[in-house]
Structures are given as C-alpha cells and as structure tokens.
C-alpha cells in the first residue's frame, strides 16, 4: 500500500514537472531579454519622464493606412499621424475644400493610398530635417511633407509606372528623389494581351528633381528600363554619389504565378544607374518628350489651399541612347533590399530567396567597367561579370534577408523575415557578430540617418508584420509593431516593443534638435491669403450667390462670428469658410454642422478652412466647436435657420444681436 501511494505520489510529481516544462507558451525569458536587472535598465533607457522630450523623431510609414506617423524615440510614444495619401476625417484632410485637390490623380479622386518608404531630405550626405518624402505604391505617387508644419505639401503622380515600390529615396544633396516600377506595364499604357508581356512591358525609373529652396518636385526624366520588377533602391553616396542602385526580381518576365515563375533565375540584377551621366545627356537636349497624364498637387501655406494640375508630358530616356550610364550587377536570387553603406563603397543585395547577402564593391565595379568585364547583355544593357564586381557573399546568415542598415563602425544590420531576426555583421569581414530574434516576421529596420553618410547609430527599430501574442488581443486584427534596440554596444539589446498604425512599412529617423526648434506654432493672420479668409470679426458676412451661400465666419475663444444666420433655404449649397482668428500656440478650433455629409474642420490658429453643407430639412440647425478649445468650449456654438425652398426670408447674420463689426 505504502509503495503504491509512494509511486502515485512520485508519478504526480513527475507529471507536474513535465507539464510545467511543456512548451505550451514560450516562457517570458525567451520572448525577449526581459530578465530582472536588464529589464530594469532597459526600462530606464526608454523612460522619458513626464514633460521631458525624446531624443529622436521617428517617421514611421502607415503602410496600407496611407499615412505617416510621428513617434518619439526612445519612448515609442505616438505624437501625430500625418495624413498623406488617405482621407483623414479627424483633420478634415481630403474632406475639406482646401485639401481635396491633394488626392486628385489622373484616375480622379483617390481616397486611399499605400504609403511605403519615408526618407528625409539631405544636405552634404546628412539628414537635414527640411522635408520627408514618402511614396505611394498602389497609384504611383510621391509626397513631400514639410517638417516645419508636419503637413503634406505636395503630391506628384508618376506616369508609366505601376507599383511604385523602389521609392522614395533621396540623393545626398537632395538633388533627386526617385520612383520605380514594381509591376512592369505597357509603356505607354495600351490594350494588349497579357501573355505578350515579355519584351513588351517596361519598367520606368523616374528621377524627380527637388527644388533647393521650396522642395518642389518635378519629373526630370524617366528611364524606360526592361520590364523587370524594380523592387527597392538606394542612392550612391560619397565615392558613389551620382549613381543610383535598384534591385530587380522577375527578370524572367513572367506574367502569371510569379511566386514560382519569377523565382527561376539563380541571379537577378541590381540595376546601377549613373544619373549624373543621364542628367548631362538630358541637359544637352537628350531624351524624348512623350505625352503622359499625371496629377501634380501642391499646397500653399499662403492661401491655405491645394491646387491640382494635370501635367501632359514627360521626358523619356532610352537606355541605349546613353551608353555607359546603366549596368546590371548580377545578385543572388530575387534580391529585395538594395542598400549602400555609409562610405558608398559597398552595395548590398539582400537575396530574399537565396538566403545570401551579396556585397558588391563600387571600386571593383568602376574598374570592371573600365576593363569591360561584361558577361553579356540584356536588352542592350551590359551585365557585369559577377567576380569582377563582387566583394564577397555572406552565405546563409539567416532565412529571407530583406533589408540592411548600417552603423558608423563598419557593421551592417539585416532583417530576416522568415527566421524573424535581426543579424549584425561586419561588412568587410563578412562575419556575423550578433543576432537577435524579433517578434515576428520583420520587414524593414531603421537606424536614424540610415540612408545617409552619417547614421546616428544609437538606436535601431525593427518593424514587424506579425505580433500574434505580443499584446493584449483585439479580435482577429491585431496591431503590427516596432521594436527598439540599443546598438551602441557589442550586442544588440532589445529595449522596447510598441504598436504602430497600419503597417510600419519603413521609417526615417532624425535627431530631435534638427526639427523641434523650427516647428511651426501658428499661421500669421496677416499672411493669410485665403480667398475666403477674413482677418477680423468686422469682416465676417454671409453672401448669397444664386443657390450658393458663402459664410465668411471667424472663430476665437469662445464664439463664432456670426453665430446666428437666417435666410438659408432647403436646396442651398452652404459654404462655411471659417478662419481661426487665434494667434496663440495650440489653440485650434473645430467646427461641424448637424447632418453635414463631410468631416469636421479642425483649424489651426490663423488658418482658413471650408466645408460644404447642403441642408435638406427645414428647421433651426446648430453647429458647434468640435475641439475642446477653452473653458467656454461648450458655449461655442451657433444656429442656422433653414427655410423652405422659395421662402423670401433674406440672408441675415448676427453676433450678440448685431451685425458683426457694426456699432451697437
């Protein structure tokens, strides 16, 4: 009996032991290096005390949200979501009359976009914090965002292109920002059989000149490249300044089941473009103007309005016409990221399907060109001999290498999507130094100043597509995330996880002191040139023009002027042109009208904004301030009387019983 009890007891003990050891869930220790002492110090290193500021800005793409979010590092706090390619009712972007033109395209108004790769403007090879550019993948566009106002100032559409993925990277003096074609398409578009793709589709690589003063973009030229898929790109820098490198896949030119058919070649290419040479060629009258149709939308901080212009032609350059400007660098299998180290010497192809990092040497490449070390050609473009240009290959550092960024100490950091990790390796030694798991399936990673000669290499963030169990669950759709690493030491240290908006596709980072001091506080009322803007309550009025009623309204703590309006009729189109008279920092006001078929307006001090209301019912309808502006916010409201169609009640408008500005 005793023995039986004893053996049952020991069985229970054993079972408990096994159960507790079974990998039902990964233990906390394996889900990050959150161990006692380290966790404490990690917390301290990301803790930004209340009222203190972060040391870096991170502009994290919203991916399929179409927007760009602004985070602080190291805290991972979200400050703002800048609307870029998608409508944003919170800010009225794409809803109010002033910003609607920003979303115009050659296909008409497009309310959504797929934002991808933010990149900050540069001066002398360092990020300068003037603008951040970001590309839209679906309806090819590039946007420029002011880092003084944190608003989208310009969006330009890219013609002859589809899947604008290898974009929007900036050269080291912001000479150009580029766009590329991920889906080869007929160039120009035409009605043809899809199976005739091979040789007939093209891939446009577009170089957009950036105006030094205003930042305004213009398509300087489009290179009509063979119909491969141009996946990612990076500019040369330092010694390789003047070149641009684009990775390609589907050099097989398959038009169906690409996952198999585009994965046949053991090597695809990095296309090396000598843009200085092409610039020179164009300057001397080279290239051909071709008809095209693309929208160019610009925002003005004087009129507080956007204008959309439809451009009609684009300058196209055929590679064969500029010999010596374009070469193909053979690179291991369907490379995704194409990255250039801070010195400009190493061009790295992240061999997505080969699990190999191909490192090309710019110096060897130049020598190979001189020696004519070619290995045939494709569509007239010379293919370089692999051995003649290759510095080395880092074989199997992980599975599914996608993107690489660099520190200033000769190290590269590569993300591996399949093996879910970031690997630190030395570029010259081709040796892996450290690896760290990420949670999970990392896409891009970002080191502030990553696409520049001077990375600011204290922090690295990895941007992960999948989070599964990392946060409290929120139904089937859970957030994607970013993870912050300290890379200043020998080993990468994971400090923080934070959720992101949409898909954190890629990011750009910069030291806060390059932007914060010049951040705009208000728009000066004196400089407001909005055609419907007013500078004081005395100028406010209501004007009827046929069935249009224009309300020139102001808002200031804590009332609208006028706030009682009569004479509006059913069937009218009522324009609320509202000016925020405030000239004090952080005193926006909002406005919305009951039943308006649009978003609110959220109006910054000194700015004018317009929404349209088409009253359908007779009655007295209130409007109110939607942003808690002041102690008297709840009192900030007014009424519009709507009379029946054909009523003869004249337009009248008052504030406190008087016509605004007139003597009591």
């Amino acid at each position: 009996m005793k023995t039986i009890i004893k053996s049952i007891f020991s069985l229970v003990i054993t079972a408990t032991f096994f159960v507790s050891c079974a990998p039902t869930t990964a233990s906390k220790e394996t889900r990050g290096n959150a161990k006692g002492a380290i966790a404490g110090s990690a917390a301290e290193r990301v803790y930004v005390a209340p009222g203190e500021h972060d040391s870096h800005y991170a502009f994290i793409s919203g991916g399929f949200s179409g927007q760009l979010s602004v985070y602080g590092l190291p805290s991972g706090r979200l400050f703002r979501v800048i609307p870029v390619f998608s409508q944003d009712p919170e800010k009225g972007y794409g809803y109010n009359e002033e910003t609607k033109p920003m979303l115009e395209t050659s296909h008409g108004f497009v309310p959504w976009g797929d934002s991808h790769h933010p990149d900050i403007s540069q001066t002398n090879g360092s990020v300068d914090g003037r603008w951040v550019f970001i590309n839209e993948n679906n309806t090819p566009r590039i946007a420029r965002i002011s880092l003084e106002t944190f608003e989208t100032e310009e969006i330009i559409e890219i013609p002859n292109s589809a899947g604008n993925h290898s974009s929007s990277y900036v050269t080291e003096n912001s000479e150009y920002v580029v766009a590329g074609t991920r889906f080869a398409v007929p160039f120009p578009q035409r009605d043809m059989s899809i199976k005739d793709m091979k040789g007939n589709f093209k891939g446009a690589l577009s170089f957009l000149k950036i105006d030094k003063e205003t930042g305004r973009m213009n398509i300087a030229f489009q290179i009509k490249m063979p119909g491969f898929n141009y996946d990612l790109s990076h500019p040369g820098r330092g010694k390789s300044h003047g070149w641009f490198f684009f990775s390609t896949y589907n050099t097989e030119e398959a038009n169906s089941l690409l996952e198999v058919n585009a994965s046949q070649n053991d090597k695809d290419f990095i296309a090396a473009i000598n843009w200085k040479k092409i610039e020179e060629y164009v300057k001397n009258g080279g290239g051909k103007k071709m008809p095209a149709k693309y929208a160019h939308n610009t925002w003005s901080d004087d009129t507080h309005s956007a204008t959309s212009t439809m451009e009609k032609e684009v300058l196209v350059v055929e590679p064969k016409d500029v010999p010596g400007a374009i070469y193909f660098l053979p690179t291991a299998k369907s490379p995704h990221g194409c990255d250039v180290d801070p010195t400009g010497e190493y061009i790295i192809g992240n061999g997505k399907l080969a699990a190999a990092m191909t490192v090309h040497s710019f110096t060897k490449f130049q020598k190979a060109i001189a020696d004519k070390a070619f290995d045939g050609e494709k569509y007239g473009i010379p293919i370089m001999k692999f051995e003649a240009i290759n510095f080395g290959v880092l074989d199997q550092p992980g599975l599914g290498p996608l993107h690489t960024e660099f520190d200033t100490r000769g190290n590269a950091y590569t993300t591996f999507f399949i093996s879910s990790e970031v690997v630190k390796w030395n570029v010259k030694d081709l040796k892996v130094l450290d690896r760290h798991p990420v949670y999970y399936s990392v896409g891009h990673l970002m080191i502030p100043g990553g696409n520049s000669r001077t990375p600011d290499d204290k922090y690295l963030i990895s941007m992960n597509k999948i989070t599964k169990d990392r946060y409290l669950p929120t139904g089937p759709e859970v957030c994607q995330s970013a993870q912050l690493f300290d890379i200043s030491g020998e080993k990468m240290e994971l400090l923080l996880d934070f959720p992101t908006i949409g898909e954190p596709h890629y990011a750009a980072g910069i030291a806060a002191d390059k932007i914060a001091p010049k951040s705009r506080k208000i728009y000066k009322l004196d400089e407001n040139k909005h055609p419907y803007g007013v500078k004081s309550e005395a100028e406010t009025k209501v004007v009827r023009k046929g069935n249009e009623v224009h309300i020139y309204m102001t808002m200031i703590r804590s009332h609208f002027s006028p706030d009682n309006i009569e004479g509006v009729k059913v069937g009218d189109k009522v324009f609320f042109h509202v000016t925020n008279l405030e000239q004090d920092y952080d005193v926006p006001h909002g406005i919305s009208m009951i039943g308006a078929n649009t978003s609110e307006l959220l109006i910054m001090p000194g700015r004018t904004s317009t929404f349209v209301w088409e009253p359908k019912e007779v009655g007295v309808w209130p409007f109110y301030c939607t942003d808690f502006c002041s102690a008297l916010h709840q009192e900030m409201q007014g009424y519009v009387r709507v009379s029946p169609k054909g009523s003869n009640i004249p337009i009248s408008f008052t504030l406190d019983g008087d016509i605004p500005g007139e003597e009591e």
Partner: protein
Amino acid sequence: MKKSKILMIIGALLLGALYVLPLWKITLVAPQYPEPLGLNIHITHLSDGVQYNDVKNIDLLNHYIGMAHLPTEENVAKKEIEPFIEFTIFPIVIGVMIAFGLFVGFKGNHKWYLYWLLIMVFLGMAGLYDFYAWLDSYGHNLDPNAILKIADPVTGKPMGYQPPFLGYKKLLNFEVYSFPALGAYFIVVGMVLSLMAFITGKKEAKS
C-alpha cells in the same frame, strides 16, 4: 569739458532709451502657458513681452474675467477703449526732460543738476502712482456681464484682479510677475549720473 558736465549730459541723454525700450514688464505664467505671456509697457505703447501676439493674447484672456480691453491702437480704433492719454504725454515729458537736462548740462551750474534730479524723482513718483492707479482700475472695474465671476474667499466680494505693482502675485491660474524693464534702469542710471554730476560739480566749483 568738465567731468560734471559730461556726466549730466550723458545722464539726460540716457532717458532717450525710453523711446525704444520698455519701461515695465508684466509676465504671466500658467499651466497652459509654460512659455509665459509677457506685456511690455513703453512710454508710447504696449508690446509683446515674450512671444509674437502676446498683447492680443493677454487681451483675449482678460475678457473671461470682464477686464477692460488694453489700450492698443487696434482697440482704440475699434472704440473698445479710450486712448491712453499717458502715451501722448509721457514722450513729451521725457523729451522736455532730456532738453532741460542738456540745457543745464551745457550751462554747467551744478545746482541745476540737483533740481533736474528732484524734478525727475517727482515725475517718477507721479508715474508710478499713475501706473498703480491703472492697475487698480483694470483690476476692479470689471464688466458686470463677465463670464467668470469669482468671489474673494476672504471678503466674499467679487474678486479683484489687480496685477502686482512690483513683484509677484497669484491671480487664478496665473502667476503674475511685475518688474521694471530695461528702460527703467536707464532712467535710474541717468538719475544716478545727474547726482554724481551734482557732487562732482560741487567739488569742481570749490576747487
């Protein structure tokens, strides 16, 4: 030229700074205004003390407690407030005192240096009293229809919002600081120089 004369002439000329520099400065700090609001008081007008548009922003906040509008050009034009007669008189008085100071300086009679100083002291006192009276008037002549009517916790009467004459005072959510500004220091230095001119002149006359 005698040392006393030079001191007197410089002393009188220093008053000229008042045409450029503010005489007094009132600063307001609140939780919502970590970067404070400032009101510079000049002999001719009011100006922004810390940031762009401070005067208008202070004026805007004042309306919550029913305080009268500030005497800015814009408010006078809109007939929101009577013009400040002081903004007309002060520049004339200062001009006269500079001219008078220069006159006695060139004349070189050290006794008149002292008279100039005494007149300045008198004018200074009068100016300060006038300033006090205005603060009192702004603090207590409140619009009966004011948005916020707060009773003084001690007296139970409507609370006054008189800013401090000199130093610090807490008014509702604001910490208000009131101190002489750079222009005032120029006056003081000018007056000290005239006193030195008098003493030096007296010595010079003896020797």
